[in-house]
């Protein structure tokens, strides 16, 4: 393990990778700040650039973009009450009132310090838990992986909230069906209709760009959010001081510590993610606060701002645990990362720890470096970066669309992909309008290939029998958890009751 950490340190601190963290954090902050564009879109937009890099550098850049986008999302939540990501919704509850009362700079600083603390504690916990879990999962066989893939698919549906469970399952199935397009392992063409452009299947980059970046930009136009006005009429001079006093630091410190641990463990759960973590942390702090402090929540409480900000960063870090140890993504963002890793030829999972220690450890260490970059460099630059919010939407939106299209074209150099992207983008908009979550579709698509491969192998080993589902203890345990995860919210949905819509937990 020590050797691995040293290799990771050496890789993460190489000049090129430090530059990648810097570039990723800056680009992520810019993109994440734009209302409507979250970390998934930010990562999808950056993936084409990473294809020319080695896997470690590519993933470090992507991790930097992730952190930057989460930070950028919080910035727009505080400054203009428009959370760039669903994980920053709770940040706006107290962040925006603080900004309105002339304490925007202080709110941004608290958000940055809390994010840093959450990310740091999360990174330390990651450092402890990932190797342990990776070692345990080394004993996993194809049957267990098949069960894990099923769990990954169903967990997302389970955490979608009442009224959304069946829709999330349907979208996951749609994603799994789309994953079958192209040549199967036995060389048979499936659903290609003789079209050579489909022989290799639908590119994950095309699907993620179309369903997130393109669809989100089109939704912004469709809803005419802001019309031709700039994204914000914010003036940098109105930010106020960025400093936080010792008393304020002491006030938020316990909330930060509690929310870090809560956020990390919620983040580990596949499908839960930063949104649930931030809301839980906010609720927990409000309940724990003394009566006189409870009234401040929603009106500009420092604890109310620090708790969700800490939790969403710790959860973002926690969501890397299932990705790095089991090869199953816990969120849409890590699903896109999984797709990126697979396209680099790197197979995430327990073997990553052994086969690619440089990638494994450098990514974990880079997360920490990314947190430092955000605190030391991005925070002082926020008054300048936030000027991006003043660019008129009528200029910004076509540029986003152009970069999305170019991102896909520059990988395949095939204009058929552009047409396909437009078609899928329009279909994605239709489903967004119909209130069907798109993240499960992407997750199903990315897990589809692995799910089929593992099922095929398991059946081959077990002579075509499905007995592995109940005869292997690990498989059986995962299958029981999967069924419970799926059945509990489904039964609740089928029994009806008051409708409760949860924010799309998989959008971060």
């Amino acid at each position, binding site marked *: 393990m020590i050797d691995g950490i040293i290799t990771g340190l050496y890789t993460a601190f190489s000049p090129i990778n430090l530059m990648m963290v810097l570039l990723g954090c800056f680009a992520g902050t810019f993109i994440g700040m734009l209302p409507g564009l979250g970390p998934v879109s930010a990562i999808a937009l950056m993936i084409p650039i990473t294809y*020319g890099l080695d896997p470690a550098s590519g993933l470090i850049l992507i991790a930097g973009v992730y952190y930057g986008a989460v930070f950028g999302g919080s910035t727009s939540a505080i400054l203009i009450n428009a959370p760039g990501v669903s994980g920053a919704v709770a940040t706006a509850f107290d962040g925006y009132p603080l900004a309105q009362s002339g304490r925007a700079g202080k709110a941004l600083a608290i958000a940055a310090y809390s994010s840093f603390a959450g990310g740091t504690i999360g990174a330390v916990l990651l450092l402890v838990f990932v190797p342990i879990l990776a070692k345990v999962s080394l004993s996993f066989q194809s049957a267990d992986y098949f069960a894990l893939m099923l769990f990954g698919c169903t967990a997302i549906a389970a955490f979608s909230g009442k*009224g959304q469970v*069946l*829709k999330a*399952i*349907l979208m996951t*199935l*749609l994603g*799994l*069906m789309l994953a*079958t397009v192209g040549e*199967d392992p*036995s*060389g*048979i063409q*499936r*659903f290609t209709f003789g079209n050579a452009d489909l022989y290799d299947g639908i590119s994950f980059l095309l699907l993620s760009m179309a369903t997130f970046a393109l669809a989100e930009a*089109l939704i912004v*136009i*469709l*809803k*005419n959010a802001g*019309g*031709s006005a700039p994204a914000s009429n914010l003036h940098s001079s109105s930010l106020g001081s960025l400093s936080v006093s010792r008393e304020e630091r002491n006030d938020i410190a316990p909330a930060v510590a509690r929310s870090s641990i809560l956020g990390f463990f919620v983040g580990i759960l596949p499908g839960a993610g930063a949104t649930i973590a931030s809301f839980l942390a906010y609720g927990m702090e409000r309940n724990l606060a003394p009566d006189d402090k409870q009234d401040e929540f929603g009106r500009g409480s420092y604890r109310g701002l620090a708790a969700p900000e800490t939790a969403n960063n710790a959860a973002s870090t926690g969501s890397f645990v299932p990705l790095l140890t089991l090869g199953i993504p816990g969120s849409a963002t890590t699903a896109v990362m999984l797709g990126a890793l697979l396209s680099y030829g790197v197979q995430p999972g327990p073997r990553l720890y052994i086969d690619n220690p440089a990638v494994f450890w450098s990514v974990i260490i880079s997360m920490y470096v990314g947190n430092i970059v955000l605190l030391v460099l991005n925070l002082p630059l926020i008054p300048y970066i936030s000027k991006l919010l003043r660019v*008129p*939407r*009528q*200029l910004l*939106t*076509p*540029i986003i*669309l*152009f970069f999305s*299209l*170019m991102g896909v*074209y*520059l990988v395949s150099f095939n*204009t058929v992909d*552009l*047409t396909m*992207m*437009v078609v899928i*983008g*329009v279909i994605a908009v239709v*489903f967004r*309008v*119909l*209130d*069907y979550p798109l993240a499960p579709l992407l997750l199903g698509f990315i897990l589809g290939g692995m799910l*089929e491969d593992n*099922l*095929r192998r398991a*059946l*081959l080993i077990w002579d*075509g*029998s499905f007995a592995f589902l109940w005869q292997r203890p690990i498989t059986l345990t995962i299958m029981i958890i999967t069924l419970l995860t799926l059945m509990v919210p489904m039964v609740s949905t*089928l029994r*009806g009751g*008051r*409708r409760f819509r949860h924010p799309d937990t998989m959008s971060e």
Partner: protein
Amino acid sequence: MMYLLNNKDRVGSLLILVFAIVYLKYALGLPLDPTAGDDSFNARTLPVGLSIAAIAFALLELIVSTRRAGDGRINAAVQGFSWLPTLLLVLSMAVYAFVFDSLGFILASYLFLHSGFLILGERRLLLSATVALALVMFLWSMLTQAFGIYLDSGDLFRFLAGLSN
């Protein structure tokens, strides 16, 4: 009938149901590997299983959505939507994809960006043209000069270059 269809949940599940039925039809027609014998797992196994699951869940959602409370009306959800600029922008993206090979990266991208700005209501023509041209030229220089990526100059450019020679 219209009342039944004016619901987001039902229309979504109907769309997936239709897709799953068509998918199942093609899945059942998938060829099998003649060398594989009677393998329990073949090219059809997963697609058929997935489509049956999708049909079952889509039907379940159709039933459940009729009992679900809350306002899921489509006409309420799309009220106030800016259809025209969105459709024009989608059309401009489709045209961009269609003319890319003919016009080449620079001209096609410039026209797409400029038309996008105009569609979304930017009336300062000089500003639109400058931003579009500057962005396209910057990206072109970066990609071709800094990264050494080849970008097609387009059939039109080659035709005009041929004429001048």
